[in-house]
């Protein structure tokens, strides 16, 4: 285990997690809107925002799947040390982290008609986050919002599954934005 795996946690776990969660909750409640988030410093290649989301929400109850280039020993050790979350394959994941092209969307749990909440949350690492591109409509959005989604068709398919489906948190640097399954993308 590298020394870097032991550092980079919250300085004040309770208050830092509370602040971070508040930003994540606002993001999930207002799809497409960007929020600043921080407190955790994960090893490369993970962004501060993605690391902070993991630190805020993951623990021994949540399986985490590291997709593609994110699946590196330093990050595995960091998540294991700080959160105790088991690292699992995509089919059993509660949280998935990776670049858009690496995330195995079709393999992830989307919930069941009885329990649509038993679905994965996907943390998508992005180059940048800007309010241009796809148009978002739905709960949490007064008229419409815009976000540079990596593609459109996959999110339209996901929204069509409602109330089943995946929920997405996009991260770049210290910024996050979210796209729950309830949002209609055009």
């Amino acid at each position, binding site marked *: 285990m590298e020394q870097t795996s032991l550092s980079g946690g919250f300085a004040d776990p309770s208050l830092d997690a509370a602040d971070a969660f*508040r930003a994540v909750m606002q993001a999930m*409640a*207002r799809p497409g809107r960007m929020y600043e988030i921080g407190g955790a410093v994960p090893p490369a290649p993970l962004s501060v925002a993605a690391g902070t989301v993991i630190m*805020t929400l993951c623990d021994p109850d949540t399986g985490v799947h590291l997709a593609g280039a994110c699946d590196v020993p330093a990050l595995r050790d960091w998540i294991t040390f700080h959160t105790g979350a088991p690292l699992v394959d995509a089919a059993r994941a509660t949280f998935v982290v990776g670049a858009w092209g690496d995330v195995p969307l079709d393999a992830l749990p989307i919930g069941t*008609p009885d329990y649509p*909440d038993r679905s994965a949350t996907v943390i998508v690492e992005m180059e940048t986050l800007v309010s241009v591109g796809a148009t978002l409509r739905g709960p949490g959005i*007064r008229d419409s919002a815009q976000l540079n989604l990596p593609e459109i068709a996959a999110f339209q398919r996901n929204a069509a599954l409602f109330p089943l489906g995946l929920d997405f948190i996009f991260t770049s640097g210290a910024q996050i934005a979210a796209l*729950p399954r309830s949002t209609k993308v055009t």
Partner: protein
Amino acid sequence: MSDYNFAYLDEQTKRMIRRAILKGLAIPGYQVPFASREMPMPYGWGTGGVQLSAAVMTGDDIFKVIDQGADDTTNAVSIRRFFERTAGVATTQATREATVIQTRHRIPEAALSEDQILVYQVPIPEPLRFLEPSEVETRKMHALEDYGLMHVKLYEDISAHGAISTAYAYPVRVEGRYVMDPSPIPKFDNPKLSMAAIQLFGAGREQRIYALPPYTDVVSLDFEDHPFEASKADHPCALCGASDSYLDELIVDDAGTRMFMCSDTDYCGTRRAKGHVGTAPTPPRQEETT
């Protein structure tokens, strides 16, 4: 330095509740099961709301609690003190100053802003529970969007009473999908359920969390020929004269003289501070004096 972890709950419990909140926001109106903790207050005193407040609270929050609109009732005072002691947060009675508002059975009269969060205490989260006692069955009904029974219930109201007699906990349909219990708020408050603030609902004993993101489409169930009506007592407030607020009815003497006053104490107090005055108490009902 407090002897408690920030906001009482341990961090793993907060994470569990926080994950449930996120799924609730992603599936508006769906009741997310969560592992409700035993709280240092009895079930029915807002344990669901308290756990939600503890999970969303930050050190910078200004916290307000209302019980049927009032800041100064036992339940509201004790929950406010609970978070003063365990989280060290600032508290207020002014609706516009608060960032997190925990409520029992009312929505504040003043419109809430995007910077505020409204947390509801919910006794029975399942709107179909009194029609179908089995959780297995109601879960299936939600999954299949089978809400005919609820419409039959409202129809039976009309056939028996000439109108839908449900006055509180009036069922709503969220985004055309889930039928949801808005908690026992008076139906007067139902039109306010589409608002700029995030709304979180917590039922401690029943172990359910659900949510409404801002600007969510919330429709009170009704029929074309019996449209939904947000009703209130047909009086102005006896203290501040407001004719647009929800009123409590109070018997003030042995002769049955009644007083109608705002249930939202902050709304009423703010109006009185601005110089609004009310009307005289209302005479007893005719049928009561004969």
